[in-house]
């Protein structure tokens, strides 16, 4: 009941409500093709209000090794799951089923 009441209340100020829902979708992060680049609320701003702030003068997008923590450029891992090595070894020692099939044909 209360839900219905609040719906009708919202409907009375339709344009604003629309806007709010749209913004909520953005903060929830809808991702639509038609969703367009929005007008900025302010014309200008400082570095401190952007992602330049954490860079400390490094060029943007250099990756972690260059000082930009938003991107990882060094993600090769030498710790292989034990499982993978075991499986690989057993696969290599297996009699080659595909080959024997080929011979039968």
């Amino acid at each position, binding site marked *: 009941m209360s839900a219905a009441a609040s719906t009708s209340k919202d409907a009375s100020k339709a344009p604003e409500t629309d806007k709010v829902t749209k913004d909520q979708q*953005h903060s929830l992060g809808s991702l639509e093709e038609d969703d367009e680049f*929005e007008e900025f609320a302010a014309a200008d701003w400082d570095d401190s209000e952007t*992602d*330049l702030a954490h860079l400390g003068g490094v060029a*943007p997008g250099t990756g972690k090794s260059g000082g930009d923590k938003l*991107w990882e*450029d060094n*993600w*090769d891992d030498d710790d292989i799951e034990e499982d993978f090595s075991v499986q690989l070894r057993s696969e290599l020692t297996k009699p080659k089923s595909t080959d024997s099939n080929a011979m039968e044909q």
Partner: protein
Amino acid sequence: MPITFSTYITQLTDAVQLTNGPNLAYLLRPTSPHGKDLRNALKRFEGSVESPWDEIAIQYVLVCSHIAKKQYEEAFKEESQLVSLFYRFLPESRGWTLPALFSILRDLRDLAYDADSQSGGAKSDSMEEAARIITKAFGLCMTDRTSPYEESRKWGIYYVVGLVLKCYFRVRRISLSKNILRALEANNDVPPLAQYPRAHQVTFQYYIGMLSFLNEDFVKAEQELTLAFYHCNNSARGNKQRILTYLIPLRIIQGQLPSAELLRRFPTLEELYSPFVKAIRSGDVQAYDKALERSEQRLLELNLWLTLEKAREISLRSLFRKIWVSVDKSTRMPISMFHAGLKISGIDVPVEEAECYVANMIYRGFMRGYISHEKQMVVLAQTNAFPRVADRPNPFQTI
């Protein structure tokens, strides 16, 4: 005594209420004496202030009245008139008028959008007309040769260009944006972009990035979107997300994976891209294929499917590297080793195909070494057999 507008309206409604046909006819006849009175009444405003502000004021009222009646096509037409009148004034003015110019152009575009939506379906006449009208403002800003540098109308150039691009993107007539960009390039006395307000810079960079992406100039797309992302105000989350949607796949191809910290800030993008990122890190090609399949529809709509399909080879490279690490980074590896590794990862292909994958990896610079086909052996470089993906010289060349 001359009749006023409010008296006239009362007489009209009186005639209707009294069902007085002849009187109603008299009231509506242009040749009736009150016609002149009423015309003079409006005319009083018409020269009462400096042109074109008298007419702009009248246009403004017309626009408002159409909006109130939800007649958006008419409202758009009247707003177009208002903008044209404003253009008459613009050449004599300095940059102080730009906030008003931006505002009426923005309204024009919004009304064009409403007009097109109201007429239903895929019509885009009003939006294209809006783009043409806004393009005229570009010329009017550009031709300011008298104002002092600080007060020049030239400070309106990038905003206007951004707005024109926004119109064409909205109606998917992206090729039409070439004209204004060409005009922009042809003028060499435009102040450098970096001196404009950040809102103008970021909007412009975003659209140039997107245009480059759609024209498959991925190097430029990546550069422009990176600039747009880093200069964008953090509070404009929707815009940041929009930029990142395209920037993340482009940077993945360059071997720069979005960090967990970055993805956490944009849950929608985390949901979309983290399966790909995980599959690349772990060399799980099968999981990568599943992610491609799961998000196929969405990626196609965003024009991003091909880009992510291209990045699949990076997860294949991780798998090959994993195989190499699990045999203690041997410099000589039989093809059968890669074949077996593919198989336990769920990719069951003939040995010949496995060999072909290896050849491709070498060709694309993901692995350093050569294949001895006779001996069915891959000989890897002593050092740096698997260079970092980020170190590949021309990551977009083979797309």
